[in-house]
């Protein structure tokens, strides 16, 4: 990690905020904290952050209004909304207000961390890259082909999108929910380990006949695609 990521947490529950700050610090992320909407808005406007984590219900100014105000001012720092309201339509209103991601409470910290990291790296990831490369694995977004060590691997359309998303966020943990949301575009609870099965199918295709693992399972969190030996 070249530069440390710096985030702002706007959360009125002090205990939760202290826990988050500590957990983020352990994960190598510096965080500031604001305990109400007004001071959060001020801090987010005056300082430069990589990601804002905003609770939806805040004293003095609610989370959604903080986001719309920031967007109005032309501040486009990625925002992750935390909310006790997790229903389908709440997510939609949250994203409509200008949020970039939405995480219903209670959440696991791993899930939050993975999402914050993806949001924070977003700036650095060139969306327009036509070819993603991780080690000897190569994914061509234009011709929809995947090669490893120069050998073409035939993937189903969904497997291709799954790999594309993993490679776009290479070196970072992506959770099962993130995969369901971004690859399948559904936000519901699939009850079973459907994602794991899809990932293991994909893994066997890209790893079975080749040397060296690429797609790892991060215990208690999700998956990460990473060149072997890279940090």
């Amino acid at each position: 990690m070249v530069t440390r990521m710096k985030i702002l947490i706007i959360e009125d529950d002090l205990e939760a905020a202290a826990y988050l700050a500590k957990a983020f610090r352990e994960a190598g992320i510096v965080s500031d904290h604001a305990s109400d909407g007004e001071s959060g808005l001020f801090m987010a406007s005056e300082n430069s952050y990589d990601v804002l984590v905003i609770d939806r219900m805040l004293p003095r100014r609610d989370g959604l209004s903080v986001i719309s105000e920031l967007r109005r001012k032309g501040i486009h720092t990625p925002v992750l909304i935390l909310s006790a309201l997790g229903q389908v339509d709440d997510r939609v209103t949250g994203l409509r207000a200008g949020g970039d991601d939405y995480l219903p409470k209670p959440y696991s910290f791993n899930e939050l961390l993975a999402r914050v990291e993806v949001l924070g790296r977003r700036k650095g990831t060139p969306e327009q890259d036509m070819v993603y490369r991780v080690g000897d694995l190569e994914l061509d977004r234009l011709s929809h082909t995947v090669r490893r060590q120069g050998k073409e691997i035939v993937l189903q359309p969904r497997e291709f999108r799954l790999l594309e998303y993993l490679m776009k966020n290479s070196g970072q943990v992506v959770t099962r929910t993130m995969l369901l949301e971004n690859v399948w575009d559904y936000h519901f609870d699939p009850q079973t380990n459907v994602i794991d099965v899809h990932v293991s199918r994909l893994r066997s295709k890209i790893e079975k006949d080749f040397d060296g693992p690429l797609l790892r399972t991060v215990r208690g969190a999700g998956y990460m695609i990473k060149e072997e030996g890279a940090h």
Partner: protein
Amino acid sequence: MNRLRVLFRTTAVRLSAVYLVLFSICAAFLVFYVTAMSQRLLEQQTREAVSTEVAQIEAIYDRAGINGLLRTLERRARQPGANLYVIAGPTGEILAGNVASLEPGLLDKEGWTGQAFRYQRYTDESRKDSHVALAHVLVLENGLRILVGRDLQEPEKFRVLVRQALMVALGIMGFGALVIWFAIGRNALKRIDRMSDASTRIMAGDLSQRLPMSGSGDEFDRLSESLNAMLERIEKLNEGLRQVSDNIAHDLKTPLTRLRNKAEAALAHKNTSAGYRASLEEIIGESDQLIRTFNALLMISRVEAGGAAAEMSDIDLSTIVADCVELYEPVAEEQALELTADISGPLHINGNRELVGQALGNLIDNAIKYAEGAADPGIRVSLVRRGDAVVIAVADHGPGVPADKRDQVVARFVRLDESRSKPGTGLGLSLVEAVMEMHHGSLELGDTAPGQSSPGLTVTMVFPVPAA
């Protein structure tokens, strides 16, 4: 007395009072207008008659001289019910005629006497008995004055009569209106009393009460009907809420207890750090399951309360079915089951993509869970148009659900004894049902292969669509 006061506060009676006042003003105006008009008309007729007679008298005077005139007037004056005739000297003293006295100065001017005047007849007994008349004065060359007039007593009587008749008629009408208004007001009041009695009972907590209906289909009935429909909905929501809180009490306490026990057990034993780690992981797994149950519960009540209705849009069910089958297919394969989709083509409905997806996901997940190890590994998800509906059916060949238990399995937290060992919240079908209700559709459970030892289960989601 108190009832009367209440009655006077009703809208009907207040409105009636306003109408009564307006009506009275109109009626009074009418009475005065009619009598004034009739008086004018009669006066005009009188003047015409007098003018004609004056012209006759002038003609007689011209033809027969003063004597002829006197004779004619004497004769006319003596007829019963006669008009007024006076012959007076140049100074105004009455010489002949049928009038005893006149208001002084009346004869001074030729032409019409300005207004009606008072006079007395010979037949009158006292001076009080005066009459009102209208007359024309004629002055002859010799200074004699002739007055020809008409008594106005008759027209005056007529006028009074008309006025009285009108007053009586109006009085009767007003009284009648009051009686009717009173009756209507009382009736309305009675019905409103009954309605407010019923609502008092409802407020006291008896949500099964309904407002009374008279069956006449009038506005009160319509009001009762829509309020009853509202009560029906409130009762249902309330029932749902109560069920949810009961279920939260029963079914969330169990896993919470388990969670607590695990934490306690982890602390009680002399533990290694690996042991703690394992316990904590178990605890996290347990709480994830709790959160999942909680989310499902909230989602059901949210959907039932119509909260997600705002996010309805035009969706293509064929892509949702294809997505879901594609999503679950590898899991099915792992369990040696064959999940296939049978989609007849794009079929659009107005719905919520996420919720329909979640519902179908639940059904497929159930099918995979219960069909495991079945002789026929096929699970078929089909999407077809059936008359006025679009149906999605998930058919498996598992043990199925006996016909008498089908209602039960849809209820919240109900898991048939045979399935207690399987993982799950017991909320899957309840959510599907709630989602179907939100889409004004229905959920049907049936056998896949009726009559066989393993009949399987076919769960059908029926979405009504307007006929194309």
